[in-house]
């Protein structure tokens, strides 16, 4: 089992948008549709894509939409896990926990649950319906590589101050905190939390974003996952070929685009990636 730290430091991540379908409609998410479509992954396409990536240390992030809706998710995971250079990661709104609970028992799968829709001053509005599991059904501290992913929506700070005891139960070693990002249509919401990242940080992000995307619906490689904007893809896209994958992995495919200039996505001021990660992935 690889630890989260090991994975974050040594692997570049790529989002596999298997289907855009989701059973939820988070206000700050732009990569989903409530229409149920493409719920079976084309395994031949998956294998070919993974073949192109086989020489690179990749964290394959299975999501969409909601990966729990994918009918052959077990087959997809088995295929990813059969590749020695890849780490399999699943990001779910908790539907995976209901439909594929065995995934949470496999420490070789990095399972991340995005289970909070919003923080309010007096409550947390959740995405899942696993309230019977204390506290609030969140992922508990564990050794299985299962994590909560909590977005600090604008009222997070008020809630945190009002409910310190509840926060203690949520804020543990298996919880990742994420800054509120630029996907919301209301830019004021973002500006209330953080300012635009410095140009150099946006440039570094552009060269290899946190997560470029393999879009299984269009069978294209997408520069930036943040630019789907209700499924009208604004981000630059590329054909999925060995040449393009090699270029991407060697930081030669993606450029600083016009949409990067006004992007409001949070970028860690200490650096998009730490210098140690660049040392690990450049010319590997």
């Amino acid at each position, binding site marked *: 089992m690889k630890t989260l730290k090991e994975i974050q430091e040594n692997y570049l991540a790529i989002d596999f948008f298997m289907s855009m379908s989701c059973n939820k409609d988070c206000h700050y998410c732009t990569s989903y549709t409530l229409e149920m479509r493409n719920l079976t992954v084309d395994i031949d396409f998956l294998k070919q894509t993974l073949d192109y990536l086989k020489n690179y240390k990749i964290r394959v992030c299975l999501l969409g939409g909601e990966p729990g809706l994918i009918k052959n998710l077990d087959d997809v995971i088995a295929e990813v896990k059969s590749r020695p250079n890849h780490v399999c990661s699943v990001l779910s709104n908790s539907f995976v926990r209901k439909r594929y609970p065995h995934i949470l028992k496999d420490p070789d799968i990095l399972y991340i649950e995005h289970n909070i829709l919003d923080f309010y001053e007096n409550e947390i509005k959740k995405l899942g319906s696993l309230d019977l599991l204390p506290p609030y059904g969140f992922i508990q501290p564990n050794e299985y590589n299962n994590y909560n992913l909590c977005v600090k929506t604008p009222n997070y700070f008020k809630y945190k101050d009002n409910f310190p005891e509840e926060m203690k139960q949520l804020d543990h070693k298996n919880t990742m905190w994420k800054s509120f990002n630029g996907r919301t249509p209301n830019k004021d919401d973002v500006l209330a939390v953080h300012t635009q990242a*410095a140009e*150099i*940080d946006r*440039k*570094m992000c552009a*060269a*290899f974003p946190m997560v470029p995307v393999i879009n299984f619906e269009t069978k294209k490689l997408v520069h930036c996952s943040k630019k789907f904007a209700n499924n009208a893809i604004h981000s630059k896209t590329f054909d999925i070929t060995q040449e393009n994958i090699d270029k991407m992995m*060697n*930081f*030669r495919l993606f*450029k*600083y685009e016009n949409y990067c200039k006004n992007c409001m996505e949070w970028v860690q*001021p*200490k*650096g998009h990636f730490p*210098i*140690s990660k*660049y*040392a690990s992935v*450049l*010319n*590997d």
Partner: protein
Amino acid sequence: MNEIIISPSFKTFCYFDNNNNMIDITDKIPFRLLELIKKMRYIFGNDIVLDKSLITDDIEDIYHYIIEKAYERSDYIFEEINFKDKAKEKLLSAFNKFFFEKFNK
């Protein structure tokens, strides 16, 4: 001036003029560039060289960005870091490009 000689202590910077006189230009290097040079020791160790002939055009943008980030944020590089040889070569080229562009401004 195409090459700048760095003293082992990193305190003095010189070049040779056309008559082979050693000219001390330490005072002419802006403070932030001096700080950057010191940071670069964490990557290049004693192999750090300031030489225009190392500048090439065919390296990926990310190497330039890493150098710019190290210049903009002094705590970006704070300890010894081991890049692979090829990456180190490209970083050295990017560093020289950045240095001479800023220095000649």
